[in-house]
Structure formats: structure tokens, C-alpha cells
């Protein structure tokens, strides 16, 4: 049986708010609730008519581990709509879509709310194992003398140097590399210069600024905090981004000798993105007017040290299956974890050697025209709330195709740990 297309009825996301070294104004579930309720009130069905809710989240906080269920209840879906949380690092949001599609395709569900969220600014500080052992001793101490003895063993340095949860999350546990160091690997392998990366990043900001001015970001619904502050836009986008400014930033991951800087990496952000996925039957039942369809999807895996090339490995089989060349796709979204990583993907497709060795192709797969890639900017400018990004790029791709009156698009994302995910979509105008 072939791939049954699944309809994307509608979608919405919050503005992405840049992490500024302190917890942001919204928890992850707050973000997902605000985007979700704005999306649901414009539908012809009620929240309780959903068959399930699936939410991707890479780092749910300890008090909402199954954040999908927390959010579904807060959205007023009622007690009877099942909800779950999926985790595939940077592709958690895309995994939520894929899981929703699978359930729709096999007839378990007709109408699913799926998306992704992360509030990385809320990532916890953790105690080191040494500190945890100290707490355990303290709990066992019964007498005051025993307690004093344990207390004397406390090393303030341990107390004051917590493990930064976020840094743990952005480090590959198998090979011990930071994600940015895997991007340095790609820059080295494909000879991507600092200048190329910075130029790519400036373009990302400029495209995001232009998209905002042209009203091409219709998927954003504003956030409102309890102090009455309205957050209407992605706040990491810099209209003043320029080469001179970016070239002054110091490399972050290989501090003295590297090329990857905070300026040519995605931003650590808080945000949520949702899509409503539906079967043909649900479209008919509720008289929905879908944005488009997801017509294929693919997961792939590769060397964790080269994780940034995941989009190449995931998107290539889709194109092959559908008889398409890179240039046959009207618009592309490749999540910009790092400028070097997106440029690495393009270089890999253009490399005879890489395509022969890694993709079993006779020669280079081809060139992806830059004018079709991330036309409204990407995560370098907009931000990368890990779990949300996979859903954001699929959603935005459908909006961008509609704006461009184009039909076919591919969204692809690289995944920490050495994986890639991609989806082929079609706009319905």
C-alpha cells in the first residue's frame, strides 16, 4: 500500500523568544496552550472533537513530563482525548507530526493536534552526583553530631557549580561532542569558511525581516503574559545583522581555532508550534479547508559526529521515491541548527565523493538553488526551541508555498545523535 496523504488543516505557532540567561516569561506548557487555544478557536470543531494530541518536546520540565497530556487538558480537550509526548531531540515536533500521520493512516485517528514545544530558557540547573551523594548522607544522619560531621564534608565549590541541564542536552552522550563541534566537523570536511557561514546568517536575518514586513509569517499568534505584555514577533531577529558585526564574534565551540560562533548558530529559544492533521473523512465531516497535504516522510541515521547532514540522508530517499530532483521542489525548509550545517548539506549533495560513499549514488545528487531554501529565514534568525522547530518548518513551508502560489515543498531537519527527518508536502490553494 502506498503512502496515504494526510491533510494539514491549519497551524499556528508562538513567536520564538530568545533565551536571555534566565527563565523566560512562559513555561513550555504555557507556550503550547497559548498557541493551541488560538488555533483551536478558529476551527469548526471543538477541542473535545480531537481524537488525540501529540506533542514533541526535547526537555519537558520535571513537573510536566507528559507535557502533551498537560497541555491537552489545559486546552479544554476534556478528559477523554488521549495525549502523549514524543522525544526525538531536534525533530521531536516533526516526530509528533509523523506519529499523528501514522495513526491517521492506519485508521486509529481522524483528527489530531500535533506539534512541538520547548522552553529552553527554563532548562534546569542540576546537582552533580557528588552533591546528590552528600544529600543522601545528610538524610541518613540521625543525630546532630552526625549531621555536623556530614555538613563538614560539604564542598561549597560543588554546591556553587551546578550541572547546566541545557549544556547536557546539547552534548552528544555517545561521543561527547557539543552540537556546535559536530558543525565544526562539517565546516572542516567541506571547507566551509567563516565568511560563508556569516554571510548565510546575515541572509537568514534579512529574509526573516523581509518576511515579517511582507506579512508572510501568518502562522504566528501573539503571546500575552499576566503583566499584560504582548509578545508579537520572534525577538531574536536582527534587522541590523551584518557581516562586519558577525565577523567580530568569537568562536564558541572550538574556542580559539574554530569557525562556529553564536552568530552563525541557531538561537536557544522558547516557543511552540502546532498543526492540525486530518484524514479525508475528517475533512469531509467538518468541512475543513486544508492548507495542504503531507505526502511522504522519512527518517534516516548517520554518524553522530556528522549529525548535521541528517537532512541529506532523510530527504534523498523521498526525492528518489517520488522521482524528483532537488530542483523539482518549489521550496525547501532545512532547519538551520548551524549555518555550517545547512551549507554542509548543500555541499554534500554536490559532492560526487559524499554521494557515492554515503548515499550509494553514482555521482553528486545535484544543486539546491539557494533562492528556494529557507526563503523567509531560518533558525539562525528566528530561533530554535528544539522540540518546536520540526513542526515550525513544516507549517511555515505550507504558508510559504501558498504565498508563492507554489505546490511542492520539502522540510528537513538534522537531529542531535546522528539522525535526520524529512517530509514532502503539497500545498492546496
Amino acid at each position, binding site marked *: 500500500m502506498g503512502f496515504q496523504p494526510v491533510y494539514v488543516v491549519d497551524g499556528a505557532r508562538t513567536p520564538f523568544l530568545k533565551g536571555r540567561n534566565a527563565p523566560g516569561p512562559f513555561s513550555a506548557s504555557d507556550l503550547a*496552550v497559548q498557541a493551541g*487555544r*488560538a488555533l483551536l*478557536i*478558529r476551527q*469548526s470543531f*471543538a477541542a473535545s472533537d480531537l481524537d488525540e494530541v501529540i506533542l514533541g518536546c526535547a526537555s519537558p520540565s520535571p513537573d510536566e513530563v507528559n507535557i502533551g497530556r498537560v497541555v491537552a487538558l*489545559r*486546552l*479544554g480537550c476534556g478528559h477523554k482525548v488521549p495525549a502523549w509526548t514524543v522525544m526525538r531531540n531536534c525533530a521531536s515536533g516533526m516526530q509528533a507530526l509523523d506519529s499523528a500521520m501514522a495513526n491517521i493512516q492506519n485508521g486509529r485517528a481522524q483528527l489530531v493536534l500535533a506539534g512541538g514545544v520547548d522552553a529552553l530558557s527554563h532548562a534546569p540547573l542540576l546537582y552533580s552526583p557528588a552533591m546528590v551523594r552528600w544529600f543522601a548522607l545528610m538524610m541518613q544522619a540521625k543525630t546532630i553530631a552526625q549531621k555536623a560531621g556530614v555538613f563538614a564534608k560539604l564542598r561549597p565549590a560543588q554546591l556553587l557549580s551546578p550541572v547546566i541541564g541545557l549544556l547536557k542536552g546539547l552534548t552528544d552522550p555517545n561521543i561527547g561532542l557539543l552540537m556546535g563541534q559536530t558543525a565544526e566537523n562539517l565546516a572542516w570536511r567541506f571547507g566551509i569558511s567563516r565568511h560563508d557561514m556569516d554571510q548565510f546568517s546575515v541572509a537568514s536575518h534579512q529574509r526573516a525581516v523581509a518576511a515579517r514586513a511582507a506579512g508572510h509569517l501568518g502562522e504566528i499568534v*501573539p503571546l*500575552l503574559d*499576566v*503583566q*499584560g*505584555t*504582548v509578545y*508579537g514577533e520572534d525577538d531574536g531577529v536582527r534587522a541590523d545583522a551584518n557581516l562586519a558585526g558577525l565577523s567580530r564574534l568569537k568562536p564558541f565551540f572550538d574556542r580559539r581555532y574554530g569557525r562556529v560562533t553564536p552568530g552563525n548558530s541557531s538561537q536557544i529559544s522558547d516557543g511552540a508550534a502546532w498543526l492540525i492533521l486530518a484524514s479525508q473523512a475528517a475533512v469531509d465531516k467538518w468541512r475543513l479547508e486544508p492548507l495542504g497535504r503531507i505526502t511522504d516522510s522519512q527518517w534516516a541515521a548517520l554518524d553522530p559526529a556528522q549529525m548535521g547532514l541528517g537532512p541529506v540522508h532523510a530527504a534523498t530517499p523521498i526525492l528518489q521515491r517520488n522521482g524528483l530532483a532537488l530542483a523539482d521542489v518549489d521550496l525547501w525548509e532545512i532547519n538551520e541548527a548551524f549555518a555550517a550545517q545547512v551549507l554542509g548539506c548543500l555541499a554534500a549533495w554536490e559532492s560526487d565523493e559524499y554521494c557515492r560513499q554515503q548515499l550509494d549514488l553514482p555521482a553528486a545528487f545535484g544543486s539546491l538553488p539557494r533562492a528556494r531554501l529557507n526563503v523567509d529565514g531560518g533558525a539562525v534568525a528566528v530561533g530554535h526551541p528544539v522540540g518546536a522547530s520540526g513542526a515550525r518548518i513544516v507549517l511555515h513551508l505550507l504558508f510559504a508555498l501558498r504565498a508563492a502560489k507554489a505546490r511542492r515543498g520539502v522540510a528537513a531537519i538534522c537531529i542531535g545523535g546522528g539522525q535526520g527527518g524529512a517530509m514532502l508536502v503539497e500545498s492546496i490553494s
Partner: protein
Amino acid sequence: MNIDSNAYRNWQLEVDGAGLAWATLDKAGETTNSLSSEVMDELASILARFDSEPPKGLIFRSGKSAGFIAGADIQEFTRLDTPAKGIALVERGWQLFNRLAAVSYPTLALVRGHCLGGGLELALACRYLLVVDEPATRLGLPEVMLGIVPGWGGMLRLPGRIGPQAALDMMLTGKALDAKRAKRLGLADDCVPARVMDNAAALLIVADQPRRRPPVLQRLLNGPLKRLVAGAARKQVARRARVEHYPAPYAIIDIWEKYQGNALAAPELIDSIVRSPTARNLVRVFFMQERLKGFGKASTFQAKRVHVVGAGVMGGDIAAWCALRGLTVTLQDQGMERIAPALQRAYAAYSKRLKDPRELRDVMDRLIPDPEGHGAKSADVVIEAIFENLDAKRALLEQLDAVIKPDAVLATNTSSLRIEELSSGLGRPGRLIGIHFFNPVANMPLVEVVAGEGADTEILARGTAFVKQIDRLPLPVKSAPGFLVNAVLGPYMLEAMRAVDEGLALETVDEAMLAFGMPMGPIELVDMVGLDIAMAVGKSLAGADAEPPRCLLERFNAGQLGKKSGRGFYEYRQGKAAKGVPGRVPAGLAERLVAPLLERTQQLVNDGIVADADLADAGVIFGTGFAPFTGGPLNYLRNRNV
């Protein structure tokens, strides 16, 4: 022990395997329990049978889902025409509960839901009190609100249980405690979830541990230092109620201080309370309130979704109130920036009310900003609350009419425009009704439900049920300028401003009406309403040619718009009017100022704007705060002329 469980009409009595007796009150023919004379006689006979054959323990509980016991049977109060009957009523409960308090076996009241008045006095007479941790659990002695005193042992036992300061606060304000607070104050011995309540009741009563005594300071205050507490309480009461208007709170303090809480020891106080028109009038007000609530029961309509257009003070507060009462609300205005202040205000108000952070989060989740108005199409009730402009409202209502559900209630919160003019462009003009809230929405219990010419009766019934659903009192009125409340306030405020024009000080005018028993003086009321609104309403009520009072016009022209602009007649600092000392109030001033209000109320009844005099009285009391002890303007007029 041999128990015939059908021996009583209102009580079910069982003795379990452990020898504990469970007395379940399930008052015949009612949905809530109250302590009628029959219920109390049966309780007396239960106690009598246990005197000869004591159980291991006796547990009181309720067979009603609504709550434990709502209080005495208020219907019986209306038959107290002689002092002897009043004394007999007090005696009945005082002696029965003393008897209950003195039994040899342990007793426990298992309180789930409301436990008010005589219900709490019964619970206080038990050795133990166990409360179920649910929002509906409320314990209080609200007798003072009916102008009477908690004479069945409340004045004796509550101060002894939780200390006199907290006890007097409860008895003098009528405020109820929730389950957690009851535990914290020592009123309840424990506070448990429903799932373990029966087990907890049995364990507590079997253990039969001595009760925790109040702290030493509280015991001193309830003993040798009583005078200190009583003095402070009298001062506090004097700030809110004058003894000539409200004798009951003063009597409560006296009976606690001088008569050990035994009202029977002060028959002259019972006599004065039973005979005073205040208690009669307040009981009447209570029944009028029940009548208003009853209007909401004419339809089984239950709204789930509300859509409010206009996020100004009224629209925003209406939306916030509906969300607080459990409805999902979409709030529409032009852009998120306009809606944001309403949500900020709502959050501040909720934060004061809701202690549980999850409840706070859930109510904020239910209040949904909706700049594009998507919520209208799925709402059960749609309320228009934009600025008072006929064309703007008409255009909006026509848009809404086209998208909302065919059976949705479409309502306007207009205070000055005619429903018929607003609705004439609609497909079915009869579908538009008025649902008129008062400012501040969270504090004003009355909502006028306005029927225009040819209003759809089903929509009216639904709108009325909706008002009841959100715990407001629906008052049916016909469409006429100012409906009832604003129409009677207009001439009253006008007369007050005329008096100011004649040279009386603002404070003197206000003082005259405070002494009359109004909660706020008429001049301060104009500030509260807004001088701009007063100008506009004056024109719509008195005609465009009518000359506004000089004092109003001058201030209006100077941009002094009232409390909202920081200055109107008075200057406002931190939201409070800076008032000087009032001068001597000229004789007859209050009568002169209130006369136009009385006259207009009568006129509106004559014109059929409000169905009868009782409803007019109820509307004016709950909509304006008109001195409740008078029983309302028309009742006042009637009694004055007698």
C-alpha cells in the same frame, strides 16, 4: 442495638458493626437540609433514645449532595410576630444543642458542602468537627445578614473554639470559611478528601482524643480580656453599620461579652431584634433574592462558551467574571494590545481570590484573547460591550448575527441605548436582549435582563439562566431609558448635584445619605460612574435640552471625569476619595435627596418596566446598594407613610 431506620421523616439512623451510630440528615421534600422545627424535634428524640442506650459514638452527616445544613428554616422566621415566639425559637435550639454538647458518648459532625447558621451551631455542639476538602465546603454564621443573632450556641461555642477575634469577625460579617481555613483556625479537627471522610470520621471518634485547645492568648481574650476585644469590635462595626439601622451586630457583641453567648439571658435584646423592622426587612430581602435566583431556573440552558466583544472595563470584567465561574470565554477587541489590559486586570483580581496556582492557571487558560473574533461562531452566549455608539453597535450586532449559532443568546450590555433601535437590522430582531451588568462586575450582584419590544421569550429565558449560572441575580426589566437601576439613580444624583449648586458642601451631601444608610454618598457615586457618563445619561434620561447642574458641567468641561481620571468632585489618591469633614446636615436633606429616587421607582412599577414593587425593591437594593435594612425604596415609602 435495634434501630428502625424509617423511624424518622428527615433522619436516617444506622449503627455500624463497630457500634458507631450514623445520623444522616435528609430533609423530606427538599434539596437542601435546613433545621426546621420538625427536624429538630426528631433530633431531640434521637438524643433521647441514645440517653438510655448510648452508642460508641454518634456521627452527623448529610444525605444531600448540596451540602451539610444550610441553617435554620428561614420561612419560620416570617411567622415570629410576638416576642414570645422569638424567645421560644431561640430556646428550642439553645437547649437542644446544649443537650447534644453534654451527651456522654463522643459526637462528630462530618461536614461536606455548606454548613451555615444553625448547621454550624449543631456542628459546634459536637465534640469533633471534620471537614471535607472541597470548594463547596463553607462554614459560617451568616445570621447577622438577616438582622438576627446566632442564638443556638454559636455566640458561646465559636469564640471558645477559635478565639473571639476570628469568631466575632465571622459572626459580625457573616463571612464563611473554606475547609482549609476552618482547619487552620481550629474550627475543624481535620480536613480530608472525600475518599477517606467516612474512615476519618470513624477513626477520630473512636480515638476520642481531647480536642486541641486554643492558644493561651485567645483563652485570655475570651475570658478576662473580653472587654478589650468587644471594644475593638464595636468600633469596627460602627464604621460599617449604624446601630439604629442594624442592631444585630451590636447585640452579638453584647451577648458574647456580657451574657456568655446566651441570648436567653438577655430577653430584651431578642425582643428588640425580633421587633425591629430591620430583621423583617432583611428576611424579606433574602426571599426577594431567592425569587431573583428563581428566574434563572425557568430554563435548563447551560452555557459553556461565552464570547464578549469589547475589552474595556465592562467587557473585560464581564469576560473575566464568566471565566472565573468556569466558562470558557473568548474576548474580542481590535488587537492584542487592547485586550492585554483586561487580562492583566483579570489576573490581578484572580490572584487575590484564588490561592491554588493550578486554579489560577486554569482560569487564565479559559480567558482567551481573540482579536479576530473567531470565538463568536461557537459561543452559547455572545455579549456586546463596546462603547455607547448606536451605529457602531448596530454594525457589530449585524456582523455577529450572521456568524453566531442560531440558538445562541445575543446580548448587549448597553446602559443607555434602546434595544429596539439596536436590533432592527437583525434577521430576527427579537433575538437581541439586554444583559446589563454594573461596575464593578465582581462586586455588583444584580444584572438586568432587558426585554425589548417583541423579544424572543426563549432567548430571554436562556439569558436569565446564564445570569444565574454565573452567580449573579437576574432582574427582568423592559426596555426603557436607564432600565431600572440607572433610571432611579439619575434623578437622585441630579438632586444631589442641585444641592451642591445651592451651596452645600460635597461632604455634607454625601454624609446625609450615608446617615440614611446608603453604602456610598451620591456625589462620590457620580465620581464612580464617571462625569462623562453622568452627562450622557442625564441627556438620555432628561432630554438633550435639559440644563445639567452647574457643578457637573464645570468639572466635566475641566476634564475632571471622576475616579477614573483621578479627579472628579473629589480628588482620588490610591483610589480613595480625599474627603473633608462634612458640615452639619440640614434637617430633611436626606428625605429631599431620596425623594426623586422613590418617585421614579414607583413610576417605573406603574409603567410596567419592572413587574412589581418587590422586584423593584430587590433591583434597587442589589443594583445600587440602597439601604437594605429599609427593605428597598418602595417598602421604605410604604412604611414611612404608615
